[in-house]
């Protein structure tokens, strides 16, 4: 066991992880942050996507030890109290989810996409979420939601955290 300390959603977290423990299990089982989902565990579905040091990554493709000292944003960090993040609002309003399994990962991929490219075209949106699979929606409403989020954030002059 090794001690791993990270900053998650602006808060310090310290926990123990075996070298072979994947970051996603560390977040969920050791730290109790179960917002991040586990789907395939082989890097194909994107359900486990989180932001590590400003970049979206799949947390099943990293060992917890590799995140020592990292600054992490998970889906739990998007809303401010009861105020949803504009991306979350847009997913809600545009039916960008059905069962919700893929949603935490989709939100984090969208968050990164809009940070890098605040006004993406439909093609750029589709490319941005290419690593995130959704079994329910057929993606149409997800793409719509990301478009709407982009507009909301432009209009609100909302600079992301």
């Amino acid at each position, binding site marked *: 066991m090794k001690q791993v300390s990270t900053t998650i959603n602006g808060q310090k977290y310290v926990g123990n992880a075996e070298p*072979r423990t994947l970051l996603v299990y560390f977040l969920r089982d050791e730290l109790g942050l179960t917002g991040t989902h586990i789907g395939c565990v082989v*890097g194909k579905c*994107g359900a486990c996507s989180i932001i590590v040091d400003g970049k*979206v990554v799949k947390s099943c493709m990293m*060992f917890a030890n590799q995140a020592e000292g990292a600054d992490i944003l998970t889906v739990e960090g998007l809303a401010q109290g009861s105020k949803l993040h504009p991306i979350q609002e847009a997913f809600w309003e545009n039916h960008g989810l059905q069962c919700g399994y893929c949603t935490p990962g989709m939100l984090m991929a969208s968050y*990164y996409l809009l940070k890098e490219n605040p006004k993406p075209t439909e093609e750029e949106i589709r490319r941005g979420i*290419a690593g995130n699979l959704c079994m329910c929606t057929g993606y149409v409403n997800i793409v719509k939601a990301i478009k709407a989020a982009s507009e909301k954030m432009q209009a609100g002059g909302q600079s992301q955290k």
Partner: protein
Amino acid sequence: MFTLFNMIPRAFEYYAPASVSEALSLLQKYGDESKVLAGGQSLVPLMKLRLVSPAHIIDIGRIPGLSYIKEEDNKIRIGALTTHHEVETSPVVKSKCMVLSEAESHVGDQQVRNRGTIGGSACHADPAADVPSVLVALDAEFKMTGSSGDRVVDARNFFQDIFTTDLRQNEILAEITVPALPPRSGSTYLKFERGAGDFAIVAVAAAVTLDQAGVCQDVRLGLAGVESIPLRALKAEEALKGKKPDDNAILEAAARASEQSKPSSDIRGSAEYKKEMVKVFVKRALKTALSRVS
């Protein structure tokens, strides 16, 4: 199929050396029992499937000074830990080596490109991967650092067999150098794939340089997915060198590239089909590269 596997790697010891020399002494100490970890986008899956089970993992991912892109003397020097995303979006790479930027843009998805490194792709040496075929086409140079110093080999000697390179167990790949393409060059990377994030069925890296009269001064063709190593299609290059790149010359080059390819049949297609696709995609890639000559 996933549930058939135990997705937890065998237990191992983890080290995060702060410098190259510290990493080298760990490699020396643990020998064949140890393995370098960079972005982990190839190694972590292999460990989960227990196809690779090193007792000691040496994480070089946070060693400073191994991630950079520098243009020098008509060359672009890229630190081994530079991520796919960083290479893809580098203005220098885009303007002087479009084929590499385009190949990087096809690697997996944004999450994979944010963690996976150019050096990791090279060392993993998957013959169907995107970056190695470009490195072979451009005859990139690989700088490896060991406890007895640095050595440099070219792509021809670096890629030796499927998943096998010239890198020694006690060395780290430090840098990859590609040429900045000269004026009047055009290049492209064309990937034929089943869907986003998959490896290529076949892919073509093409770069051409014309002289003032429009004659091919230099032609570079690299192929992915057609051999046990990324293939440099030298005979196809010869079909164009010193000639005007008209339709006949392009078709001859495409036919030779297809002849030289020895793909195997797998879930992505039969060998025969892939050979045919090499012909189609070499032709298209050459036309695109030529249309970009400026």
